[in-house]
């Protein structure tokens, strides 16, 4: 009797598994409960025992292939007759299949930095069957640190997409396969049986491709999925978008999403699917007064970081007012000449330079806390908060800012700003910062109470420069003058930095800016 060995369902929300290793070859005798292969899934890795005594007559899925739950991966003949003689031939066929497989290039989730362990696929630029050129963007990812586009390493055809948009995948996991050969994406071949035939070699190589094809079909034709009227009614009543439905795996005929699948999903707090939707399709509530919009990945990260910082640090904010006349008039005079040199000179360049000086003076501001230790950084990596349209914020830092002069800092500020806005940052840009400046003044705000960028202990907020009447004292006489004034606010972590140090630091910055030595520029 031929018994099909299928990819087992290892848990509620597991719909596929990767075959890691075959413990048996074609023609091998297997005992019931003897391990025949190993799989790896989302949740667990496990060894799969044989359900029967018999002889392994057919292997349909090769090592490292990922197939849907329920896919036949092998066949066992429990009578064990007339099989051994064919085993050699079948072995050869499998080897051939492997060679064909070699033309398929696997595209892994790239490692975007030391501490980046996973990435979220934001967008597929290509679909299955599309031709791709070397260096052509195939998908976009978002990580903890940065968002980036991933180019193809080769010319070929996108054979397979293993994860849908918004799936979060560990670094190194294959997310797509590109065929450099000419295997057509639409090839359909009948699964083979053990009946021998010389021409079978090619045949045998295709079933596993076919299986994979079905997987893609499921992924790439999502919008063509059939939903029963009842499922749609429930989705409507429960406020579940089509996109969200598409993330729930169905257990009905042909993988169809059934009422029970959906009700189970809802019951489990809508967490059963791969991820929650973060596609920008909106849904309105019954009275259409509230628009519900799922958070995108960036927003979620910002949210997490902000909450985390407020949880960790004891924020205290001190404010000072700076007379920036000197810098103001210098900028007025020299902006054009600098811009001819390709340097965009701004207040921020001067502030950055001054802050670096202050950090050198008050090294406890250029530190972080590690348990009960204080880590004082001997270098300054100065973070500059950059707003990214339409709704993002990122803090790349200027490495070794303490080795740069005002011009150098001005160039660096422009550089990281540009790269942040065009998604060209590399993860290193956002790592190992020691202090941050945030310039909300560009949006007109006078002052704010910034939130510390962890694990730093201070952040300086820069307000807008406005002309104000101020009282000046000259030769014992008070008079009123019009001056370009700017508020600086320093949020510091009271765990480490008390009011005295914060005040001294802030005052140092104020005094240095007011009396800026223009000759050094």
């Amino acid at each position, binding site marked *: *009797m*031929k*018994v*099909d*060995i*299928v990819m087992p369902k290892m848990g509620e929300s597991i719909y596929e598994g990767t075959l890691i290793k075959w413990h048996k070859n074609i023609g091998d005798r297997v005992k019931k409960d003897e391990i025949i292969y190993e799989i790896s899934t989302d949740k667990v890795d496990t060894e799969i025992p044989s*359900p029967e005594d018999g002889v392994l007559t057919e292997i349909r899925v090769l090592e490292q292939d990922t197939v849907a*739950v*329920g896919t*036949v991966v092998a066949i066992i003949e*429990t*009578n064990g007759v007339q099989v051994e003689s064919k085993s050699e031939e079948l072995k050869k066929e499998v080897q051939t299949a492997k060679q064909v497989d070699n033309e398929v290039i696997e595209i892994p989730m790239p490692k975007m930095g030391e501490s980046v362990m996973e990435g979220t696929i934001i967008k597929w630029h290509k679909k299955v069957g599309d031709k791709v050129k070397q260096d052509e963007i195939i998908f976009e990812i978002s990580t903890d640190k940065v968002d980036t586009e991933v180019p193809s390493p080769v010319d070929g055809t996108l054979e397979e997409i293993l994860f849908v948009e918004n799936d979060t995948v560990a670094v190194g996991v294959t997310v797509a396969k590109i065929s450099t050969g000419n295997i057509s994406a639409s090839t359909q071949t009948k699964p083979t049986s053990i009946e021998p035939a010389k021409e079978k070699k090619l045949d045998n190589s295709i079933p596993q491709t076919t299986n994979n094809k079905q997987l893609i079909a499921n992924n790439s034709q999502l919008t063509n999925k059939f939903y*029963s*009227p*009842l*499922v749609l*009614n*429930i989705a409507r*009543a429960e406020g579940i978008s089509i996109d969200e439905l598409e993330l729930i795996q169905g*257990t*009905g*005929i042909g993988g169809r999403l*059934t*009422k029970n699948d959906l009700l189970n999903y809802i019951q489990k707090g809508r967490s059963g699917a791969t991820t929650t939707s973060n596609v920008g399709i909106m849904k309105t509530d019954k009275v259409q007064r509230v628009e519900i919009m799922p958070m995108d990945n960036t927003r979620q990260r910002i949210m997490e970081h902000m909450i985390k910082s407020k949880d960790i640090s004891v924020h205290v904010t001190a404010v000072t007012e700076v007379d920036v006349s000197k810098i103001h008039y210098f900028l007025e005079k020299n902006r054009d000449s600098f811009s001819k040199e390709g340097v965009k000179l701004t207040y921020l360049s001067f502030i950055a330079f001054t802050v670096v000086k202050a950090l050198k003076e008050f090294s406890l501001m250029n530190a972080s806390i590690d348990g009960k230790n204080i880590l004082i950084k001997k270098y300054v990596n100065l973070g500059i908060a950059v707003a990214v349209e339409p709704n993002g914020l990122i803090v790349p830092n200027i490495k070794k800012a303490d080795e740069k002069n005002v011009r150098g800092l001005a160039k660096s500020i422009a550089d990281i700003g540009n790269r942040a806005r065009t998604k060209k940052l590399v993860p290193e840009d956002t790592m190992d910062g020691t202090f941050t400046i945030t310039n909300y003044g560009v949006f007109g705000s006078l002052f704010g109470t910034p939130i510390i960028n962890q694990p730093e202990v201070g952040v300086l907020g820069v307000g807008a420069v406005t002309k104000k009447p101020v009282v000046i004292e000259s030769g014992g006489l008070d008079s009123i003058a019009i001056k370009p004034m700017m508020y600086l606010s320093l949020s510091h972590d009271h765990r480490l930095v008390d009011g005295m140090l914060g005040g001294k630091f802030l005052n140092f910055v104020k005094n240095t800016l007011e009396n800026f030595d223009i000759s050094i520029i």
Partner: protein
Amino acid sequence: MSKSYDLAILGGGPGGYVAAIRASQLGFNTVLIDKDNLGGVCLNWGCIPTKSLLKNAEIFDLMKNHSADFGISIQGLSFDFSKIIKRSRDISEKITKNVELLIKKNKVTRIRGFGKLSSKNTIDIFDESGKVTDSINAEKIIIATGARPKNFPQIPVDYKKIVTSTEAMNFSTQPRDLIIIGAGAIGIEFAYFYSVLGTKVTIVEMLEQILPVEDKEISETLLKSFKKRGIEIYTSAKVEKAEVKGDEVFVSILNEGKKIELKAEKVLSAIGVMGNVEGFGLEELGIEIEKNHIKVDKQTYQTNVEGIFAIGDVIGPPWLAHVASSEGIHCVETIKGLSLQPIDYDNIPGCTYCIPQVASVGLTEQKALDAGYKLKIGKFPFMASGKAFAVGEREGFVKLIFDAKYGELLGAHIIGPEATELIAELTLAKSMEATYESIVKTIHAHPTLSESIMEAAANAYGESIHI
């Protein structure tokens, strides 16, 4: 040297023979063992022969009671009871032969004999005299030995005066009067059949309604119809004793605290069935049996003994041929290793072939309420159907029960013309998770009885056109 098979199936009823054909299609070397003609109770002593009898009754009913409605006058209308019985037996015989051919065509080995498991892989075959004639080996075994009418000590069946359905469809003469104990589908069908032919019929049902599994409203409608025919009906009535005295059977019942004495020429005991679990070597192999039925895992149909499976009536309710067939196919496909959805036991149609016919699928109104649903119920009487009017069958109605929250079709109940055929649409609707809109927006041909389904669905949402 005994022969070896991949799969042996014990019992050739609608569970066993269907499983055998499917197994053969899937490439299993299969043997089917049954001591009798194939088809089991269903084809030999159940579904098919009774449907033949009921057609006779239906025709006679129409001619006798309704010919004038159609402007037809018939003089000297009569029937030959023995020919009615013979027609039923002939049909049964032919249809079982067709099954034998089907088995042959599908290359299933057929062994006629009594099979008994002597180990978990061996079945000994006995002939009628109890002599071992053969022994076969099989890797897997499916037990599909079916069920037989259940006996109760108060009702001592003697197969002559106090009979089961088997004898009741094969009487040599028509009984003058008949007491039917049990108002399930079997009891109700015999009641209709014999009462139309002129037998004085009395029904005794222990529960509070006839067709106890059906929706109360349906049952009440049938009750009225049967009473109009002159059938005497006692519900909530317990049989205390039934005994044969001379030519008559005396039945004492307790009905609403009152003792009532009934007597009739024959008594039909139709109070449920029990699994055929004895004599097949099941006990010896340690196969778990619970309340006269084999216990199985309803995903795989495997018993507690590995490699031995059981399907159909022998594993317990709902004791329906179509369920047995479905379980047989499911079981074989599971053995093959195909990945399957378990059978949805909430979506099994049930039919009773009296006039008016009764058919249903899913929850009754009461069960839906008990399950905590808020309901939208739609009804449409055949009285308002043009087709029913034209064909002169205006009794009954369609009743559809929807969940008010999501619009799910929870239950469908039909009493009236062709109810047993009409139910298929609603079974499909249920399995495809259709909602009321799906039914209403599907164009139903005019004039048909099926329009009544569309109208009933519309009625649940106040959109019915013809009422």
